[in-house]
């Protein structure tokens, strides 16, 4: 294995950053739930870098490793008809290649 070629990708985002999940529907094994695609949230924490599960699922190495974050969303951002408190939140683990910088007017 060539170590230099497998250095993890650098994290683009920091805790508190606004992000938006890509609205995409590629084929294959994906771990980004449909219900958060296209939605805006904030980085809660960086979890480290891990081999990309979309590659691992097909017996490939998944390198370079993808930074993984926990992203916090307001429930009302995900479900327009959410019936609980407006303060309710959800945190989802999302890989960096699914995230774009978010707008300032979230």
């Amino acid at each position, binding site marked *: 294995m060539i170590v230099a070629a497998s250095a993890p990708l650098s994290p683009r985002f920091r805790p508190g950053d606004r992000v938006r999940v890509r609205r995409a529907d590629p084929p294959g094994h994906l*771990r*980004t*739930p449909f*219900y958060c695609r296209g939605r805006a949230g904030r980085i809660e924490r960086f*979890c*480290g870098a*891990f081999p990309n*599960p979309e590659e691992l699922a097909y017996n490939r190495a998944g390198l370079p490793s993808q930074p*993984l974050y*926990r992203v916090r969303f307001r*429930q009302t951002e*995900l*479900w327009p008809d959410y*019936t*609980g*408190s407006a*303060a*309710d*939140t*959800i*945190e*989802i*683990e*999302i*890989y960096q290649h699914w995230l774009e910088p978010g707008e300032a007017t979230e």
Partner: protein
Amino acid sequence: MSELDEDHHHGHPTAPDEDGPLGYYRTLEVAVRELLIAKGVITVEALRRQIELMDGAHAGRGSLLVARAWVDPAFKARALEDGSAACRELGLEVGALRLIVVESTERLHNLVVCTLCSCYPRPLLGLPPDWYKSRAYRARAVREPRAVLAEFGTLIPDEIEVRVHDSTADMRYLVLPERPADTEGWSEEQLAALVTRDAMIGVARAIRPGP
């Protein structure tokens, strides 16, 4: 005679025997397992031991971490920073598990779900309950968590934030429930008995000591 007795003549529930022909994936699993053993990649003993370990894990292990966090604020801070390291500090073997401990307080209630499958901190809680793996729980816990909690008997007032954790990737989650009132001076062992599996998933609170 109750319906239960009619269904189970031995007086206790039993798993149904699966006497039919193996399906495609069961056949594939058996074939791969037998090949791995035949080629010496794994041994029957190692396989049996791993099953025994998985079946032997139970929520009593997770409750030790919660009880320690309740009595030791410095340990709690370390557990919230790095859950896996906190487990090792207590001698709880968690292997490669990447644990995140989330703390419920008087202003925040945490609930864990894996919408994609059944990710669960098995070394600390044992095998997940069937309802945790059900499509109904997985879909509804993110969509209407307060309704799901209410069905478990856990009513969360509107002024308390409900935060759902969707375990979609490489992390696993354990809820550190709020310590019940009237437990001052209790030993860790006494406290651990108040911490159920459901409290560490977040569908329930810790048990309140009775009068």
